[in-house]
């Protein structure tokens, strides 16, 4: 049952991922990305990582893809399909670099994960309580550092937007 569910979900996620790069219309790419994110959220639920699953939906589906769509619409996603020109060697280079990156990811994951079948998380390991406990005790310092990073990014956005507006006024 789990294997069947996983296979179906993995296929949907793959179709979504391929759709992102194959679509000629930027809005369709964003929608395929949404499909991909949603399937991955379901996979988190299957691994009983409820918190991660819901946060995946809130952040990626609820905020990031909405912002993508927002930007695509503002810069004119409705004009029509985007055509990509390109020289032959550029495509070849992209293929080689892509394959190298895939190799890197596979090797990295292979080194990080324990050998054999991955154990399913204990039913409570992915709950909000467990994640919160870990975040605020074991990983407190990295967690706070990451939030400072986000804050700096936000302030940078505000500064850039303000400067742009003041220049526009002159």
């Amino acid at each position, binding site marked *: 049952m789990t294997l069947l569910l996983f296979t179906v979900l993995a296929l949907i996620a793959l179709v979504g991922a391929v759709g992102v790069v194959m679509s000629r219309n930027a*809005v369709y790419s964003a*929608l395929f990305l*949404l499909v991909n994110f949603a399937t991955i959220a379901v996979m988190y639920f299957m691994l009983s990582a*409820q*918190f991660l699953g*819901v*946060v995946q*939906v*809130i952040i990626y*589906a*609820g*905020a990031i893809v*909405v*912002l993508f*769509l*927002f930007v695509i*619409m*503002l810069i004119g*996603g*409705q004009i029509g399909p985007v055509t990509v020109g390109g020289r032959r060697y550029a495509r070849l280079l992209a293929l080689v670099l892509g394959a190298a990156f895939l190799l890197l990811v596979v090797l990295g994951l292979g080194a990080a994960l324990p050998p054999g079948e991955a154990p399913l998380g204990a039913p409570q390991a992915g*709950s*909000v*309580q467990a994640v919160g406990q870990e975040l605020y005790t074991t990983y407190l310092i990295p967690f706070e550092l990451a939030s400072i990073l986000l804050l700096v990014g936000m302030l940078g956005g505000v500064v850039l937007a303000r400067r742009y507006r003041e220049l526009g006024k002159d």
Partner: protein
Amino acid sequence: MIIVITSVIKSLVLILLLLTGFAYLTYYERKLLSRFQVRIGPNRAGPRGLLQPVADAVKAIFKEEVVPDHVDKVVYLLAPALSLIPALVAFAVVPLAPDLTIGNFTLRFHIADVNIALLYILAITSVGTYGIILGGWSSNNNYSLLGALRTASQMISYELPMGIILVAIILTTNIGRETGTLSLVEIVNQDRPWWLWLWLWLAFPMFFITMLAESNRSPFDLPETENELIAGFQIEYGGIKFALYFMAEYISMITGSAIMATLFFGGWHGPFATPGTWYGPIVGFGWLVLKIIVLLFLYIWVRASMPRIRYDQLLQFCWKILTPLSIAYLILTAIIVALAAP
């Protein structure tokens, strides 16, 4: 297996209830608005116009299906459904009545008691934006695109104070217990001291405003302002597709009221709604429905009394007043929770 069957049956019953609720909410709103404006309102179809929603439904279903030539067909047809589904599924975590025990079988009046219910609601409301954005974009019409862009910024902005107030409510579930909870079923079952009720009611106006903005209700109905956008994202929609958008808006009003009733007014709790008795679930459900109807009255009252605000005022109000206020409320709540801890 039995859990799958009961869940499916419960979902079907709930969807039927919500759709009927939607139909009569339109009647309720039209009647109330006409009272506010010293009119009579619908009174032709059936006694006191009670069959008006049925007539409207028949009209919407039998209208000719028009798909304009210049639209993006797939997305255009998908968008109304994407708008309705989140409004319906958000109800899954709301407890409707106390449990009913018959012999050794316990019937629970909620579809899912998950420990992430409040996060689930946040996730669902954030996904609800898609129906409107995509509808506006796929219509390939400047007015509807503007409406869709307004929706995107409005919903994203108002989600922030809403989320912060929810965090404050989650914090208060910690008082007098070892751990807090995110489950609506447990939140309803917790006993709160009287001062906590008063403190929570302070946040209710703020939360209500964010709910108005999330369901695009007047005075925050800028995505569809008739006088500047001639209906915004739904210009190119007619017949049943328009009705689906309409349903999404009204059902999200019902869902929002149910969530507010559950968080701020004790859900199904009320006199005679005693758990463990045969009449408990019936009375409890009655209390919940009554609370929802009163909150829906608030929505309509606001619509009848308030002028629509300007778009920049809308965003300024959110970012410069509502967000700082909700952050201050969160900090004060945290202090109260820390003081109340044993």
